[in-house]
């Protein structure tokens, strides 16, 4: 129900923002990243939607289909929830930041950046969070290759028999 309501609101307020397919998915809303910051502010402030709590930001690397950033929202006022998915180009991964709309987005976005190298446009402090600042590569990408050495320490390779 809330799913349809959000779809309707977004179609009316931000025409062309939803990735329209013949069979619309039932459990999430795919949107284009163009107006994402404004849409996010609308989702939070609209009195009927009021998604005041950003639950989780998950980065996903789908291989050839590119990368996804998935947002799980929840409203503590109306007790409803929704998932929003935004595709990101693997070559030039960029997406507007929502860190100033939900403050928890700050660390969540840094974590996605740390693991996938997705740049969050407008984030005020986009640094690595879990890995060292001078780590090379984006570990959760499918094409990630472990570096040979780190500060002179040889990084052990995964043994074959573990597979």
């Amino acid at each position, binding site marked *: 129900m809330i799913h349809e309501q959000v779809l309707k609101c977004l179609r009316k307020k931000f025409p062309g923002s939803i990735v329209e397919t013949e069979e619309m998915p039932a459990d999430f809303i795919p949107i284009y990243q163009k107006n994402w910051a404004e849409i996010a502010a609308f989702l939070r402030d609209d009195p009927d939607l009021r998604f005041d*709590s950003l639950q989780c930001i*998950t980065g996903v690397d789908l291989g050839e289909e590119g990368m996804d950033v998935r947002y799980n929202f929840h409203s503590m006022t109306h007790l409803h929830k929704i998932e929003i998915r935004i595709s990101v180009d693997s070559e030039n991964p960029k997406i507007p930041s929502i860190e100033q709309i939900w403050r928890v987005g700050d660390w969540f976005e840094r974590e996605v950046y740390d*693991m996938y190298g997705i740049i969050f446009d407008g984030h005020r402090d986009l640094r690595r969070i879990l890995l060292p600042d001078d780590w090379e590569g984006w570990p*959760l990408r499918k094409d990630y290759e472990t570096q040979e050495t780190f500060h002179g320490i040889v990084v052990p390779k995964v043994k074959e028999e573990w597979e």
Partner: protein
Amino acid sequence: MGIVHGDEMVLNIGPQHPSTHGVLRLKVLTDGEIVSKITPYIGYLHRCFEKHCENLTYEQVIPFTDRCDYISSMNNNFGYVVTVEELMDIHVSKKVEYIRVIMAELNRIASHLLALGTFGMDVGAFTPFLYMFRDRESILDLFEMTCGARLLYNYMWIGGLSHDLPVGFVEKTYEFLDYFEPKIKENDDLLMYNKIFIERTADVGVLPPEVAVSYGVTGPNLRGSGVQWDLRKDEQYSIYDRFDFEIPVGTGQMGTVGDCWDRYWVRTQEMKESIGIVRQALKQLPTEGDVQELVPKKIRPPKGSIYKRTESPRGDLGFYIISDGKPIPVRVKLRSPAFTALSALSAIAEGWMISDVIAILGSLDIVLGEIDR
């Protein structure tokens, strides 16, 4: 840190420091005793949980969830298996559900005891810590009796449990609850209503509810700010609808709503509620039935994704799992409640004194293993 003015000094707290509850480094800009800026640096305990999950089958992930939050492993197991079961549409037997709830609530008490004890130690009260650890030990004995492990249980399996309850568990648990219930009051008198403790925590580090929600702070920290929110009631999972329990919220008894004292108080009340839940569960516990009846031979959830949250002792513990129908998950993401609580630290603690920052950090009850994963 930017410009440091003449009277200011940059101070490093941690990474190795008894008050950081693990390996956490805080870069603190101070002007005399007053803290004007805090930058937490995390990742010292990063063990690549999510990367490991790319190469593990669904059941092999369970021991890794133990190690994320090693203070409340049962609750982490619980959150993970409930998520996978919902994805696979498995409905476990009533007996399994009851045992899971008993274990999760006992672990909640153990986790809160550790949280309260170390919080007391942070503000200089060493003795209550020893009493609380003594009582926590009894709970760990119950777990050891059940599954052989004291900290990292790997007890809950997808579709069942690793062991049935041992002979004498129910009696021993009743015995413990009878022993422990009056001890809560003893501990409260020793620490919570101690004048020095109240001076150190009341009105200190007030977290307003709207800031807490914006920072994604959940669990006892959010309830300390007066927001009545508990997933066991509000987003009901497992069999929590069968139990009668209250959700305590901070009322600002000693100072302002959402101060460190309220966060402490909420945890003490939650222990009482957990005791009530365990008692009710033990009473209703079915005796017949095989706990591994529904454990699937092959765990291959259908294609799809799921995000599910459960109430761990620290707050909303979320798992985002993507399956492509193979025995190995595409993605397992853990949304850690301590991670979001720590991200709010600079919003709460800036403007307070260094000693207050330690008290605020203690009141947030963070576990670095879960933050760094």
